[in-house]
């Protein structure tokens, strides 16, 4: 509790500083702090419940998947059936990571292991799907003349959108690639910190962190590639034409 009190004091100090400096961020800071406290307290209670009942763990994972789908679908707005496309990309990516880890027993399906690992992988797949979908829409809208120029030169939609797809997938993977490259040098990621604070040995924590990071590389690549394909399919019209999503 002392830790929370000290951190709350820091938020209060930040609010005072914002006031004194005329930054106008007081409301946002206070609201963010209160929301975080309420949400984490609720999740804490919920997770305690979920850890007791194996069936609830899968319900919880399904809810995470649904929330991630809704979040990414907003980034794909303007593309027909955005939610179905977002779901397919996130589920495909998360499944690619989760299936082998569970099948080999690297992680068990016990709620205490399933929920956090599934959460991390679904979160990674969501981020990759959102960025990929958003960037492809943006690139096509910005460069519809370039896309149509390629179509007029006699290539199909997939080829005409290839530069947009490459750019979007690359952008989507920058965070996880950089995080993997710099792990331990710039930041100590959450899994590692949590395990060490929870009493695991640093070696054990490092092993699990590495497992999660490697899985995330595959998860995010698969999610980005599937999201890109589905976004292209959504922008394509019969007759090798493209619409810029509004």
């Amino acid at each position: 509790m002392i830790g929370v009190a000290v951190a709350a004091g820091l938020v209060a100090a930040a609010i005072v500083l914002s006031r004194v400096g005329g930054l106008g961020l007081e409301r946002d800071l206070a609201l963010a702090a209160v929301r975080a406290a309420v949400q984490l307290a609720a999740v804490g209670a919920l997770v305690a419940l979920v850890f007791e009942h194996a069936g609830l763990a899968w319900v919880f994972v399904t809810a995470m998947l649904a929330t991630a789908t809704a979040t990414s679908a907003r980034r794909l707005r303007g593309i027909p059936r955005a939610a179905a496309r977002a779901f397919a990309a996130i589920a495909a990516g998360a499944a690619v990571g989760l299936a082998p880890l569970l099948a080999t027993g690297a992680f068990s399906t016990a709620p205490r292991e399933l929920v956090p690992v599934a959460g991390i992988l679904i979160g990674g797949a969501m981020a990759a799907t959102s960025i990929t979908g958003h960037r492809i829409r943006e690139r096509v809208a910005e460069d519809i003349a370039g896309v149509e120029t390629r179509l007029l030169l006699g290539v199909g939609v997939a080829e005409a959108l290839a530069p947009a797809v490459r750019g979007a997938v690359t952008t989507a993977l920058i965070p996880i690639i950089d995080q993997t490259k710099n792990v331990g040098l710039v930041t100590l990621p959450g899994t590692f910190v949590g395990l060490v604070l929870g009493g695991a040995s640093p070696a054990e924590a490092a092993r699990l962190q590495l497992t999660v990071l490697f899985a995330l590389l595959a998860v995010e690549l698969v999610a980005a590639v599937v999201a890109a394909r589905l976004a292209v399919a959504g922008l394509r019209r019969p007759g090798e034409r493209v619409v810029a999503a509004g």
Partner: protein
Amino acid sequence: MGTAAVARIRLQELAVARGERIVARGISLDMRAGEITALVGPSGAGKTTLLRCIVRLDEPASGRVLIDGEDAGTLDPCALRRRVGLVMQAPVMLPGTVRENLAYGLGATDDRALDAALASTGLAPGFLDRGASELSGGEAARVAIARALARGPAALLLDEPTAALDGASAAAVERLARDLAARGLALLFVTHDEALAGRVAHRAARLAGGELVAAGPAGEMLAR
């Protein structure tokens, strides 16, 4: 090679729409091999949309486009666009060199084919290694035509090809259009400039008020 009597491109009762609104209807027009057809009319008359419909970048609201007697709607769109080149009003250069622009989507090509396409637009072979983003407006207009020619088209559709050019560059593009027609291509030259249409075209048609109001030999039609 079709004979001059056969229409390379035939528009039959074509209606074109922008969004939900029909902007022009009842358009019937033939474009023949070896001829320049000028389509004149004020901006907003639907000329650009008409060109886009011919190569299926837009769908016509009704009517048909025949390419050498075949319904364009039944042709593979990619093959159609190689056979009928559309050069947009403000041609976009793809990133990279002129060579990469000319060879785009063609698979393996040798420089001789690209040189030939470039030479027919009056640009020197040395242009192949120029950065496409560094070209002047007149050079880009000619490279855009060369890029369409590299696909070996039977017809070229040019949307206001000289509108953004200075006098010398515009004259060069006019000469180029006449050369290409003399080599047997069917050309459709879209412009709001009737004097220009009178200089380059064999036949002309005028689009106004959403309809094709006149079509015929350029000299007669434009004098009206």
